[in-house]
């Protein structure tokens, strides 16, 4: 016996409809520390108009945001702040690492700059560029929307995937499992001297 479905009823999965709601209302938290922040502002302004993709509600409180956009270099004094803000954001949450400095440290290969935020917090999308153009950031948001639609679950089970718990490729290449625990400082004569 075929079940009669009226025209005003739509059948779907709860995951799919939750993802559809989430991906079109990303509320970014702008963690802008450098020139990438200017491009981030340009992306939010009228010409590039991030509102076309439903991500225009910039919140300066992590409690009200679900997408952290780290735009600019992160010095060692700021890294504890960044981690604290990330932990203060509610699930589900995502992170975009915008620009060369946030992703890898960029040209700032010095004692004071963290060589990529992905070493210490999870990152979903990397945006290359120095700084990236607003179009690139918009593309990152579109890619993130696709990612949310593809793998999102209502209960956030996709965040527990073992592949997502691994340290970033840069740290694996250095032969480090990625600490918890502090790295012992090498004695000065063995440290690389440039």
């Amino acid at each position: 016996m075929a079940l009669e479905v009226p025209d005003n009823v739509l059948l779907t999965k709860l995951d799919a409809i939750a993802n559809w709601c989430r991906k079109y209302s990303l509320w970014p938290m702008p963690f802008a520390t450098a020139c990438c922040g200017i491009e981030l502002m340009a992306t939010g302004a009228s010409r590039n108009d991030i509102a076309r993709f439903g991500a225009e509600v910039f919140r300066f409180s992590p409690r009200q945001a679900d997408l952290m956009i780290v735009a600019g270099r992160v010095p060692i004094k700021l890294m504890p702040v960044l981690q604290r803000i990330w932990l203060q954001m509610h699930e589900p949450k995502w992170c975009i690492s915008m620009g060369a400095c946030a992703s890898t440290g960029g040209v700032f290969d010095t004692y004071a700059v963290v060589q990529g935020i992905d070493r210490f917090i999870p990152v979903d999308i990397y945006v290359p560029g120095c700084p990236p153009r607003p179009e690139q950031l918009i593309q990152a948001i579109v890619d993130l929307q696709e990612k949310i639609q593809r793998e999102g679950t209502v209960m956030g089970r996709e965040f527990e995937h073992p592949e997502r718990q691994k340290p970033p490729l840069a740290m694996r290449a250095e032969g480090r499992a990625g600490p918890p625990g502090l790295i012992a400082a090498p004695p000065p004569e063995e440290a690389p001297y440039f």
Partner: protein
Amino acid sequence: MDVSAIVEGLQRDFPSIVWSEFRGQVRVVVSRDRLFPFLQALKERHGFDMLADITCVDYLDYPVKKPGRFGLVYVLTNTQTNQRLVVRTFLDEPDLVVPTVTPLWEAANWLEREVWDMFGIRFAGHPDLRRILMPEDFVSHPLRKDYPLQGLGERNNFPVIRRAES
């Protein structure tokens, strides 16, 4: 009065100072124990009412022999006459202490904190000698020449937040 004339006049009270002139800029080298009275005389008698900068140079492995490893530099300005004067003093390890000049210029407070942070030179009598740029738990003085550019691993010294636990 010309800056060089001021310094020549001060040479009666401070016979140990050495001064030179390069392209109209007068530089004076003072020994550490005469530094504070010399700066005080410049401020109170000759109107150098603004301390533009305090900075330091690490002459470790410098090809030219210097009287000490660290050259401490005070840049003074007379805002009435627009005269500028650079006063330097040399320090050697392990005795890296100079008297603070905060009683003369309030601006010295943060400038001396910066020199302490970057070079590890202590300022005796400073009201609040803390680090100003680096984090408080930082132990090195990064602008010293024997500190490697990429640090001693401080930039990797953070807990890692994994996706599942955040």
